[in-house]
């Protein structure tokens, strides 16, 4: 959503990935978001993640709804198709696209308004299907694009720029996803690229639905004192429980980790991620325990971040259905057609 195409200058010194591309090749058009908007940092992290994962740009599909956050797919990987749908309905479009072509990698970028208000039904059901996608919520507690109304993720007591504090129970995407059985659940902060990039990489490689809830402050409408989604508040109450490292398949898993401190998770595609627990007591493979922990830390005012739950065992949508490995969109139509003779035969039942 911009008028200005970024000039493509070649920087010979830039590092290249396996495909011979530089991170510049994963950029999009110039952002038109407010200077300092958290969403732009998420964009940068996404660019870094797909660059580092050596993803072919055109094998990526960038999906979104409507909102400042939903504009961001224009700001990364210009050589990937993008689909800026209607407000709150990105999950269904992604479901259909994925049903048609399971070979692409799907990144959905959404906002807290887009996902938790108008779009919460589709969000819930994409989780239920274990749709193979990386779902990023750029969570700022407000509707940025319509100028600052509270969203459903606003915390009780959070102050708006003017007016009364929010009184309604927030919807926390992480605990909602936990209660619904999402298979990769992370929370992070746009201001912490070091944590965010590996979480995104794990999410992209995870087979099934991966949620990355990123606190991404809105500098224009929700970054003041009293806001619980501001840069300052998030930094202050940040509680980082599980680090994740991404190990490239070609790399050896060098260290061996003491039980309870780090655990390797082998992903479907052959990749591995290593979880390092900062809080030894936390178990990111138990829905029951994770929920309880998160709730307790929430009550204590903390924002728990990191890879909070992962379940590699559950099959994603196509596997659950027993669908062809060939993308449905690539099967020639004449192979799908039973032909003239069959049509004759089958009609016997209608006589």
């Amino acid at each position, binding site marked *: 959503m911009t008028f200005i195409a970024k000039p493509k200058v070649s920087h010979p010194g830039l590092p290249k990935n396996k495909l011979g591309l530089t991170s510049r090749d994963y950029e999009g058009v110039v952002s038109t978001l407010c200077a300092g908007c958290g969403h732009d940092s998420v964009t940068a992290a996404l660019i870094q993640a797909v660059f580092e994962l050596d993803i072919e740009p055109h094998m990526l599909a960038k999906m979104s709804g409507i909102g400042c956050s939903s504009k961001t797919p224009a700001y990364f990987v210009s050589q990937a198709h993008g*689909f800026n749908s209607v407000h709150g309905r990105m999950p269904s479009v992604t479901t259909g696209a994925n049903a048609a*072509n399971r070979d692409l990698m799907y990144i959905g970028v959404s906002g807290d308004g887009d996902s938790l208000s108008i779009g919460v039904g589709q969000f819930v059901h994409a989780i239920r299907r274990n749709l193979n996608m990386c779902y990023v919520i750029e969570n700022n507690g407000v509707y940025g694009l319509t100028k600052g109304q509270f969203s459903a993720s606003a915390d009780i007591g959070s102050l708006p720029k003017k007016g009364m504090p929010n009184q309604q129970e927030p919807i926390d995407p992480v605990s909602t996803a936990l209660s619904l059985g999402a298979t990769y659940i992370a929370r992070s902060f746009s201001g912490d690229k070091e944590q965010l990039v590996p979480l995104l990489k794990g999410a992209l490689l995870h087979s099934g639905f991966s949620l990355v809830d990123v606190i991404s402050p809105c500098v224009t409408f929700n970054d003041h004192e009293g806001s619980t989604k501001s840069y300052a508040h998030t930094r202050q109450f940040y509680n980082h429980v599980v680090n994740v490292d991404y190990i490239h398949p070609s790399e050896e898993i060098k260290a061996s980790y003491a039980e309870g401190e780090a655990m390797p998770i082998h992903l479907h595609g052959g990749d591995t991620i290593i979880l390092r627990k900062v809080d030894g007591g936390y178990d990111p493979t138990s829905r029951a325990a994770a929920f309880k922990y998160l709730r307790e830390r929430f009550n204590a005012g903390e924002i728990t971040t990191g890879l909070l739950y992962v379940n590699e065992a559950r099959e994603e949508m196509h596997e659950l259905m027993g669908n062809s490995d060939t993308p449905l969109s690539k099967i020639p139509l004449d192979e*799908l057609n039973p032909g003239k003779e069959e049509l004759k035969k089958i009609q016997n039942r209608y006589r």
Partner: protein
Amino acid sequence: MATVNDVVIKIGTVNGTGSASANGLLRKSIFRMGVPVVGKNYFPSNIQGLPTWYEIRVTGDGYQSRSNRVDVMVAMNAQTYAKDLADVATGGWLIYDSTWPRSRQLDRDDIMVMGIPFSRMCNEHFDGARARILMKNIAYVGAIAALLDIDLDIITSLIEETYAAKQKLIVSNMEAIRLGYDYAMEHYSCPLPMRVEKMDATEGHIVIDGNTAAGLGCVYAGATVGAWYPITPSTSLMDAFRDFCLMYRHEPETDKRTYCIIQAEDELAAIGMVLGANWMGARSFTPTSGPGISLMSEFIGFAYYAEIPAVIFNVQRTGPSTGMPTRTQQCDIVSCAYASHGDTMHVLLFPGDPAECFDMAVQAFDLAERLQTPIMVLSDLDIGMNDWMVPELEWNDDYVPDRGKVLDAEELEKMEQFYRYLDVDGDGIPYRTLPGVHPKGAYFTRGSGHTKLGAYTENSDDYQDVVDRLLVKWETTRTLVPEAEIRYSAFNKAAILTLGSGDGACKEALDRLEAQNVGLNYCRVKAFPFTDAVRDFIEKHDVVYVVEQNRDAQLRTLLINDIDADQNKLVSLLHYNGMPIHAGFVVEGVLAEIAKGRAA
């Protein structure tokens, strides 16, 4: 009045009591005698315990609509006995279960009432509550066979086919048939003067409902992604698609599925999935009914503007709102044609019977991809869920699907730069690319303002350029949609114009009017936008009776709006009480207008 092969049998039962297979058996045996039939279901929006009817019109003339008359009523439901009795035409017959005594008040002098103790007989011959109920149904088939002279051998072979694997059931079914048959033969003079006689008018035909045919059409069109949310009366369309996919759509080596059916969380999601899949290059569709269209309308407008193919089957039911979900109407014409806010217009196809549901399913996918826009197939409950005799479905193995203007990797490689919304060919249809094919094909699909190059815009001229080009596409569309069915005779200055399930009633009415020396020409439109032939047709006549099944003359509205049809010529005949239209309504409507001074 003795008649042959012109009789209407109506059977009143309680829903959930398994009468459907008995009724099917009866309908099929008549069909196998070579006699055309029409089968209509009148069922409640309920699962068990309420009245339901099945009506079989035996029509040697091969008419396709219901008759508004009942000759032989089988009143198996005590609750509706009085109503059923009242519905029988003078000179007709009513059969009831005489196991229980019937009040004397419930009688008519002008018809013949026949008691047959179905329950008693079945209780004596069968064990178990369920079997007794089911066999009671089969027994009335036997009785009707005797009364109408239906071939017992055909019934037998049908039963044998059905229960080929369950020998026991063949025996019990045949026993039940015999019970009814013998009782009728013994107590009443069989056959009745209205009876069925073998003929040779069903060769090359089948009896099928429109939803089944449409589901089959989707398989043949190569649709792979079906997304839907259950809603009466469209549900059986996806059921059929699933059933045929189970037969035909597994990879031979792996047995994996080459289709994907997603039961969406609601209609908003169903259409979103369809758009995603079509955008990705799969043929994808959703069946729904009125409430679903309302819910889909935001996305339909998106697809119009972002130019994404989609196929939507709207099996219409009686509106507005929840309305009567198990009754028919053609009431979503305007809401589909202009679905969504803003300036939008959508292509509609109007199948007239199940055979056209099959054909138009295939055409819909071709048009959707050719035109890059949603195509809505407007069927209705009458076509979708009732049993129509139609010519055998045909398939040409030379069929080449029209994928429209899709650039492949090679073409993209050769291009300097791809622009999504350029009118390269002057037909208003731009080129598109599929994700995952080539990095040069990438563009950003959006429902917000865009230029012809595909960029975001808030600029007035750039915006207008694109929406004006959509009007060019609309005119191209007019040349690609299925042509209307037109019957001309140079002498008639008046005509009937209808759509969809109005066909049968109108054609029968034409015959009847002709017999009264009222000659009329005929046009059945098959698509919106309307073709030039439709425009010409209206221009050539002084009066055009527009017959449609809604209150607000929605087809008439489109005719005036789309092709500026002369409002003074278009006289509406509107049938909208939820029952399928019948010829009598049209005949009376036309005659009444003529009586008022309207030209024939």
